[in-house]
């Protein structure tokens, strides 16, 4: 009943002290990009904390932190701009890496009039077609066959684009995981599956999720390679994702990557892990923190310092406060928007309902005659 995994047979690049593991395949990354990777991860940690704080203050209905899992988000680093991503709900860093702004991020959470999704979804359900980041959906696993379909489309169209999709280890139990993986195997679609194995699906530990030796081993059933990587080692994550992307672009088909990490916090702002989880468990994961490892590595290469970190945090903090204020001050989207985008053109029944609601909104608390 303890979800700590012995991280055996994991692909690794950095050890816990931020040193390169002897013999590791190290990804080729320019220095400024290395820094940007760490900055993104560090910013996510900060943003998560601030978001949860405003949630606790009652300003936000809901939030989900990704604390401890930030390195897994960086699977997107080897992708090109024209590659497509189907995220789950716990990959904040992937969004920021692709260029999603803190402003968009906050507006979505507040579902305000500037939210690009028009206040249609709960917090943490982003969508950005200009980044080829597909709308997050709450039902888990539905994105898996969809990502495969996009990859099939890429292949049919003769491009060398790649699709990537993220999901938690719990989600691997859904039927959609199976059908998606199987279609990908058969069609050799250029798709990369990232299982964020964080040990828990809300209150359910991984050993109640599957009896398989590992999640990566599930790849056997689909005739594709399965790779297990230390999900708290950002360079290893990037390396295995880069290899998978190369395979996919070369027409060799899909890859399943299991990034072994840990959900240090509760599932969401609605959760209370103390009810079901031994507090010693998250504590034990502390030394494996992906931020510590990467910052030690960067410091070792003289690319990072505590001062730079302080400056970064100040900057992100300020930016956050700035956009938070803006986001809070904006109202909800116009009532009319309720009826838009159900269809391309609004059919008569929705026009009628819109008219009714607008009239009703005007005559609130109507004076009633009998």
């Amino acid at each position, binding site marked *: 009943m303890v979800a700590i995994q012995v991280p055996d047979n994991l692909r690794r690049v950095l050890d816990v002290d931020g040193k390169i593991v002897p013999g590791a395949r190290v990804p080729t990354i320019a220095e400024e990009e290395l820094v940007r990777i760490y900055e993104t991860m560090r910013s996510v940690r900060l943003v998560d904390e601030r978001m949860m704080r405003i949630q606790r203050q009652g300003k936000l209905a809901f939030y989900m932190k990704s604390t401890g899992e930030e390195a897994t988000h960086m699977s997107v680093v080897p992708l090109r701009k024209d590659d497509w991503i189907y995220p789950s709900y716990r990959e904040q860093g992937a969004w920021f890496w692709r260029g999603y702004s803190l402003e968009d991020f906050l507006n979505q959470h507040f579902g305000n009039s500037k939210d690009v999704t028009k206040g249609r979804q*709960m917090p943490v359900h982003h969508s950005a077609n200009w980044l080829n980041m597909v709308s997050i959906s709450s039902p888990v696993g539905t994105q898996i066959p969809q990502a495969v379909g996009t990859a099939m489309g890429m292949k049919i169209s003769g491009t060398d684009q790649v699709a990537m999709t993220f999901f938690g280890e719990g989600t691997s139990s859904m039927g959609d995981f199976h059908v998606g993986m199987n279609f990908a195997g058969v069609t050799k679609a250029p798709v990369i599956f990232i299982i964020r194995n964080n040990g828990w699906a809300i209150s*359910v530990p991984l050993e109640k999720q599957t009896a398989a030796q590992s999640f990566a081993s599930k790849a056997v059933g689909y005739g594709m390679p399965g790779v297990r990587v230390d999900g708290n080692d950002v360079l290893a994550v990037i390396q295995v994702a880069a290899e998978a992307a190369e395979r996919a672009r070369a027409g060799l088909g899909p890859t399943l990557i299991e990034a072994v990490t840990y959900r240090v916090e509760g599932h969401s702002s609605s959760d209370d892990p103390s*009810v079901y989880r031994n507090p010693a468990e998250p504590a034990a994961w502390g030394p494996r923190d992906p931020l510590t490892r990467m910052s030690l590595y960067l410091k070792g290469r003289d690319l990072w310092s505590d001062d730079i970190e302080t400056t970064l945090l100040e900057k992100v903090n300020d930016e956050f406060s700035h956009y938070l204020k803006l986001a809070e001050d904006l109202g909800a989207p116009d009532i009319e928007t*309720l009826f838009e985008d159900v269809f391309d053109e609004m059919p008569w*029944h929705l026009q009628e309902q819109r008219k009714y609601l607008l009239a009703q909104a005007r005559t609130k608390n109507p004076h009633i*005659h009998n």
Partner: protein
Amino acid sequence: MPTMNIIQAVNSALRIQMAREPKAVILGEDVGKFGGVFRATSGLYDEFGEDRVIDTPLAEAGIIGTAIGMAVYGMRPIPEIQFSDFIFPAFDQIVNEMAKFRYRSGGQYPCPVVIRTPVGGGIRGGHYHSQSPEALFIHTPGLKVVLPSNPYDAKGLLLSCLQQDDPVLFMEPKKIYRASRGEVPDEAYTVELGKAKIVREGEQVTLIGYGAMVSIMEEAAIKAEEIGISCEVIDLRTLLPFDLETLVESVNKTGRAVVVHEAPKTCGFGAELASSLYERCLGVLEAPIERVAGFDTPFPYSLEHEYMPNADRVIGAIRKTLEW
């Protein structure tokens, strides 16, 4: 008598059933140690053990599929679907299997699965934590559908479901899970399936609804009374088989009806209720039956309050039936 909210009432019914029926098994996501994300199964894991209160892998098709296999074998499974928005991966198992098992086997294999699932909006959940899919199941022959509006009924109806031999979808109005409180006996009792309840008597308009809409209708009825309109309020409680007799009696008296539900209007349960009433009461109806329902859009997030029926909208409909 103790006071309970709906969660506590459900929990009490489950505890009674688990204690008296060794074949009863609870299964679902997070129903074990955690006691369910809404805490409806709280304490049952400790009391009845992990063999009978099972945290399953994350797969609704598996939860319902295995529950069916337990039921035809003779067990009494009580699966939980965490939100009714997540019931669709199990839709095939429910409509093609659970609902038809007795029929297709010529009566050889009854399939008494009681699925519990929270339903409806009002918790800022956006379109994936707010849907009201009851009409889909009412349209599926072989299923009973129950949806209580208060703690007393929740416990009594659930205990009734657990004692009969048909598959049931027991939907719980999550908006009022905690807000609706009332006196509930600690011991076992039943509320009869298939019987509506007249919550408030009245003369001019019959208001018909269920679940979280009942208090909306009551609120509207009170406001209407203030301005001299007398409304009868009926809580359906069982949606299939629904208690048409009670509805017909009421509409024969009032001559007007308003049906209220959260689900989208088009092809919603309101259409069935209205059509059935027209078929029986056309001669006495003084005005078209009004349907106050969710709009035909996915359930929104920011505009949730604009989306959901409220007392004002019900009053608007009442007025329309009077002014026709």
